[in-house]
């Protein structure tokens, strides 16, 4: 257990009625300890059901866990309490975007931009969604979408919206949100915990945490193999299978990044994508550390 988690746990144990659960759950989420984060957040929500921060946090945890319907509900609850909560607006915008409902995504992002005009990430997300909207062919039969506002109506059928997902997209807090193939980039620490990104199986199931656990020792094994065979420092691992091209690169000594694409994309292109994502991951790690 790291020092900050130990300190926060001790603080929460001393003052169970405090808001320390917010920081503890968020720290656990960032470290990929999603189950523990969920337990702490649910405990806090039981005590503070009217706290928008707690619902927003629950939304992020559920989204990381791949429970998108649950995340939608949690963010919608946050917006019922605080209609201008930007985190929840961005989260719901992300889910609408994933579901192919660009108009609703844009509407939520515009409201988030009004609430916080200085938030650069909202402006970037708006620009991306607008670009996608321009390049998108209208669907022959539009999916039933919930109206963007008021928020209470937006909650009407989250599962129906989410089940129409055409292509997985990165989680809202991911550093890879703006990258090509961002939905299949995974950043893992040396303990096998997911730091950022996601990875979907061909059937659409989130596999990020399981894959992260397997990647725990890969960097060390690669380093010792190249060292003992006199090949020097390792740069990348390309893994070719019948249904995937995967490339692993080390953005830093303590992390490993996996980029996975369909085999139709040449391996050398996946390697370029991985290198670009590694640079993004390195900058992101420097910012958050």
């Amino acid at each position, binding site marked *: 257990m790291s020092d900050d988690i130990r300190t926060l746990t001790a603080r929460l144990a001393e003052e169970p009625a405090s808001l320390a659960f917010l920081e503890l759950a968020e720290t656990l989420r960032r470290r990929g300890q999603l189950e523990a984060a969920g337990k702490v957040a649910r405990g806090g929500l039981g005590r503070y059901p009217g706290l928008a921060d707690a619902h927003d946090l629950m939304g992020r945890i559920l989204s990381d866990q791949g429970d998108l319907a649950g995340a939608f509900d949690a963010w919608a609850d946050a917006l019922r309490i605080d209609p201008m909560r930007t985190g929840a607006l961005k989260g719901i915008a992300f889910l609408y975007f994933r579901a192919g409902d660009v108009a609703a995504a844009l509407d939520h992002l515009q409201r988030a931009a009004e609430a916080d005009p200085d938030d650069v990430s909202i402006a970037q997300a708006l620009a991306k969604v607008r670009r996608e909207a321009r390049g998108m062919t209208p669907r022959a039969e539009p999916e039933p979408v919930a109206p963007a506002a008021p928020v209470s109506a937006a909650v009407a059928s989250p599962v129906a919206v989410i089940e129409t997902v055409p292509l997985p997209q990165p989680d809202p807090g991911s550093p890879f949100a703006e990258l090509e193939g961002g939905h299949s980039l995974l950043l893992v620490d040396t303990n096998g915990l997911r730091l950022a990104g996601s990875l979907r199986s061909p059937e659409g199931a989130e596999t990020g945490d399981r894959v992260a656990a397997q990647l725990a020792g890969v960097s060390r094994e690669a380093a010792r193999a190249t060292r003992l065979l006199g090949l020097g420092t390792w740069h990348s*691992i390309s893994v070719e299978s019948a*249904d995937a091209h995967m490339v692993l690169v080390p953005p830093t000594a303590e992390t490993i990044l996996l980029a996975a694409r369909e085999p139709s994309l040449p391996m050398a292109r996946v390697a370029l994508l991985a290198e670009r994502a590694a640079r993004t991951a390195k900058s992101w790690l420097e910012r958050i550390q």
Partner: protein
Amino acid sequence: MTDTQLVLDRMTRVPGVRGALIASADDGLVVTEQLMDGVDGRAAAALAGSLVGRLVRTAENAGRRPPVFVQLRAERGSILAAPCAEDLVLIAVVGADANVGLARLEMLDAASRLS
């Protein structure tokens, strides 16, 4: 010359290939090898076998098919591996100037013939 020796012979003719071997994937032990001086076949079998095993589990957990070819690229060369049937893995140690594309084709062909 046996089939496995033929396979190794063809692989080591690819420019830049410094050694080739067939190892038992689970045990990480050398079955047969053809190496240039200075290439530690035992280390290649043990370390590449272990890494390939981990990558097989990674692919499995990602809901993907098992790897057919792996390249571990380093500053002075690469380790190439192609899992075969019966828990064997074909391994090559190549220099930085090697024709990896040709080595890959040879290894995929050899792996299918050994299967």
